[in-house]
């Protein structure tokens, strides 16, 4: 049964979604347990699959759907990087499902079973997108992820509907550009399997024909739109900040990171490094776009007063890190980019969870929600602080190590603009988060913060932060995972090395 | 695969697309969009893609025109541009 794991990972959430719809009609309280069981099975099979992949000889497994030969049928290929990303997706999905116990009940009453069905199908689509080795199957799964995320956002409050409509329009342009790019590859190579396209590109050396070049540009444009790279990021901040809390905490850490993974997968295993980094001018140009994205993302985050909007602009900056790292063209840049996918997913997840708790408890979306927050919600503030320090890049956390690899890659490639942008954005993150710490730990009017001589009969509430455990525990696990990923970075980078060794990076 | 037939349908396609986008009355625009879908279904059939033509006629022309008219019925009929 263990070699059937890739199919189980994609089927379990699908089955969970169907059960959630069927059982939800009788009793809505059944949906969360169904979702949790489905996600638990998916997470455990993701761990087992990762162990399988690492134990397998070539560090890469292949699964043929329908038993057909890969060129004719659909094939899944799993290597260390995709195994890790699937593990990150299922872990974030599982923890977020626990987090959503109270939030979904309050924010979308009477629609929980639809919410969980869409939630599980989004997780299934993301896992499938990461594993697939077939270009058109990736488009179908991309559409499933897009449709479920449009719907999950549109369930939100008043302004979520317009934000979701804009996301539909821009997301369809992105997905259609990707489809057109695959069409341009198909018209020249006649194959849909990624390895088949790669072999056909190298075999009859059509790599420098205009169709393949334009196909590459179209695929990159489509993927950049879906990952909200700077000039094309217009839809991100409204979509994630007006969406329901649990939609934001699920999509913020995953959607953009999976699209970065797909960009790396397309660059390396379909087009090949000699095609992508053939002309120095174009890859330097993309690194410059990433540099502008980092600077713009950080500056825009600085200007925001709404907490969630600020975090979304940080995502735009982080996407700049990964795109820049991947396009440096050298090994440590690519390692930095793929390691940053995992660390940024964990960091964003922890920050969004903590911000969600504080916004929910204080009911205030702006910065003054943090006034005296440490006194009222000590554990949540600790989690937020760990996430913030990781975002700034302090050593024990994973943020430091990914920045370390990215900067060393940048220096090797001589991209000084990129290195300066990385340091500048760390500085800006520091300013951002210390502004919040100042409000949280040292509130201006000390009295309100520490309540000296507060009303005597206000019995000190010993329960942890008055926040339900279902919200607190996932956040603390996410904060702990930041340190774990950071400390275990040697082993993770070792796996990534073997995964990326086969691609001839400088 | 008669190319004269093919060119005529293609030109009609572009014309109906432009009309559908310029019409101010949304109900009219939806109906012209239905014509656009049926013309494309004719094009697929002419190009030998019979399954695609069948699906386009049933799904593309049939259902999408109906749900678009349903939406126009529930929202505004006049559009400013």
């Amino acid at each position, binding site marked *: 049964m263990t070699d*059937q794991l890739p*199919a189980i990972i994609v*089927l379990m959430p*699908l089955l969970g979604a169907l059960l959630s719809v*069927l059982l939800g*009609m009788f009793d809505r309280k059944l949906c969360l347990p169904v979702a949790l069981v489905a996600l638990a099975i998916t997470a455990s099979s993701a761990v087992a699959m990762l162990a399988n992949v690492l134990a397998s000889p070539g560090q890469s497994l292949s*699964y043929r*759907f*329908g*038993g*057909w030969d890969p*060129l*004719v*049928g*659909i094939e899944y290929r799993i290597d260390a990087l995709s195994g890790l990303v699937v593990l990150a997706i299922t872990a974030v999905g599982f923890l977020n499902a626990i987090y959503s116990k109270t939030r979904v009940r309050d924010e*979308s009453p*009477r*629609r929980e079973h639809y*919410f969980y069905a*869409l939630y599980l*199908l989004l997780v*299934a689509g993301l896992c499938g997108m990461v594993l697939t080795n*077939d270009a*058109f*199957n990736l488009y*179908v*799964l991309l559409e*499933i992820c897009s*449709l*479920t995320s449009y*719907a999950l956002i549109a*369930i939100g409050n008043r302004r979520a*509907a317009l934000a979701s409509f804009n996301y539909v329009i821009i997301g369809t342009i992105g997905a259609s550009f990707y489809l057109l790019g695959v069409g*341009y590859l*198909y*018209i*020249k*190579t*006649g*194959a*849909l399997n990624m390895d*088949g396209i790669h072999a*056909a590109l190298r075999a009859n050396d*059509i790599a420098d024909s*205009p169709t393949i070049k*334009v196909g590459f*540009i*179209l695929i990159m444009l489509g993927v950049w739109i879906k990952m909200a790279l700077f000039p094309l990021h217009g839809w991100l901040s409204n979509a994630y900040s007006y969406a329901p809390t649990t939609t934001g905490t699920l999509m913020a850490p995953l959607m953009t990171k999976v699209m970065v993974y797909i960009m790396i997968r397309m660059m390396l295993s379909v087009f090949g490094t000699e095609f992508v980094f053939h002309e120095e001018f174009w890859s330097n140009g993309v690194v410059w776009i990433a540099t502008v994205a980092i600077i713009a993302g950080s500056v825009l985050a600085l200007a925001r007063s709404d907490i969630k909007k600020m975090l979304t602009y940080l995502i735009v900056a982080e996407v700049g890190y990964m795109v820049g790292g991947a396009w440096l063209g050298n090994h440590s840049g690519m390692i930095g980019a793929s390691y940053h996918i995992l660390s940024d997913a964990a960091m964003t997840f922890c920050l969004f969870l903590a911000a969600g708790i504080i916004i929910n408890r204080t009911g205030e979306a702006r910065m003054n929600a943090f006034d005296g927050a440490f006194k009222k919600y000590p554990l949540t503030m600790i989690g937020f602080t760990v996430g913030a320090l990781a975002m700034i890049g302090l050593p024990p956390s994973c943020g430091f190590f990914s920045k370390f690899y990215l900067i060393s890659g940048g220096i090797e490639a001589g991209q000084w603009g990129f290195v300066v942008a990385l340091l500048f954005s760390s500085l800006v993150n520091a300013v951002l988060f210390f502004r919040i710490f100042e409000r949280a730990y040292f509130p201006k009017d000390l009295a309100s913060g520490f309540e000296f001589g507060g009303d005597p009969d206000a019995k000190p509430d010993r329960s942890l932060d008055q926040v339900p455990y279902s919200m607190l525990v996932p956040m603390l696990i996410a904060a702990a995972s930041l340190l774990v990923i950071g400390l275990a970075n040697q082993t993770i980078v070792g796996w990534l090395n073997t995964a990326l060794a086969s691609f001839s990076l400088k | *695969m008669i190319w004269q037939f093919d060119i005529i349908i293609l030109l009609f396609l572009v014309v109906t697309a432009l009309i559908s986008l310029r019409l101010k009355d949304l109900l009219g625009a939806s109906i012209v969009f239905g014509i656009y879908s049926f013309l494309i279904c004719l094009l697929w059939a002419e190009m030998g893609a019979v*399954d695609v033509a*069948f*699906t386009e006629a*049933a*799904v593309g022309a*049939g*259902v999408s025109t*109906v*749900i678009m008219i*349903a939406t126009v*019925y529930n929202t505004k009929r006049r559009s400013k541009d």
Partner: protein
Amino acid sequence: MKLLGLVAVIITGSLLLYASGDFPAWGDANSPANSNQQVSVRYIQDSYAKTKTPNEVTAVLADYRGFDTMFETVVIFVAGIAIIAILSFLGEPNKPRGGDIEEHPETPDLIIVQTCKLVIPIIQLFALYVVAHGHYSPGGGFQGGVMFGASLILWALACGLPAALKRLSEPRALVLSAIGIIIYAGWGFLCMLLGGNFLEYAFTDPLLPEGVEKAHSHGMLIVEIGVAFTVTAIMFVIYANLSSRGRLKGGL
């Protein structure tokens, strides 16, 4: 906004025109895509030998790339669920949806109702024929499912939405659509239980009388039936919710 649109059009337009010069001529048989020996020529030459279905498009759709088609059915399922989730309880959260109070209860027109009574059974019969005959003639799960759904929509147009909802209420339609996907994924899972990979119909050979190739053909038929269930139910649910803005009353 108009300027942004113009700029985007000019950039992508010039990009595409630059590439279109290099395309193989339209309709030539030995263009790279049409003459690829391992892929499209192989579909044409041994799809009948392996799956016993003359309609190669159905063979490729349901068997070679059956996993794609399963997720296509999931896309329709997602559209239906999403439309209900967005539109239901719009504005009046406490009032129950549906119910029998008719806002403008004009009686359905006699001529329309009679012609519908004549036409709809024929449409549904033809729809079932299209689903069942998908192996030998153009058609299959999607086309047949949409036609069956369209006949329900026709009934809703003729006699008002509540009348159609009495025949197929929304909960029942959702159960029908979920059953469709369960049939599809379940048959694929059955192939896994019998030792093959997911959706490997050859392994369901012991269950079905005829040879391994026929097992492919039967597997495809069952999968198409699952698709037809889902598409029928979801098309009607989409129409019901969009036309009555989620309140399942009134309608067009």
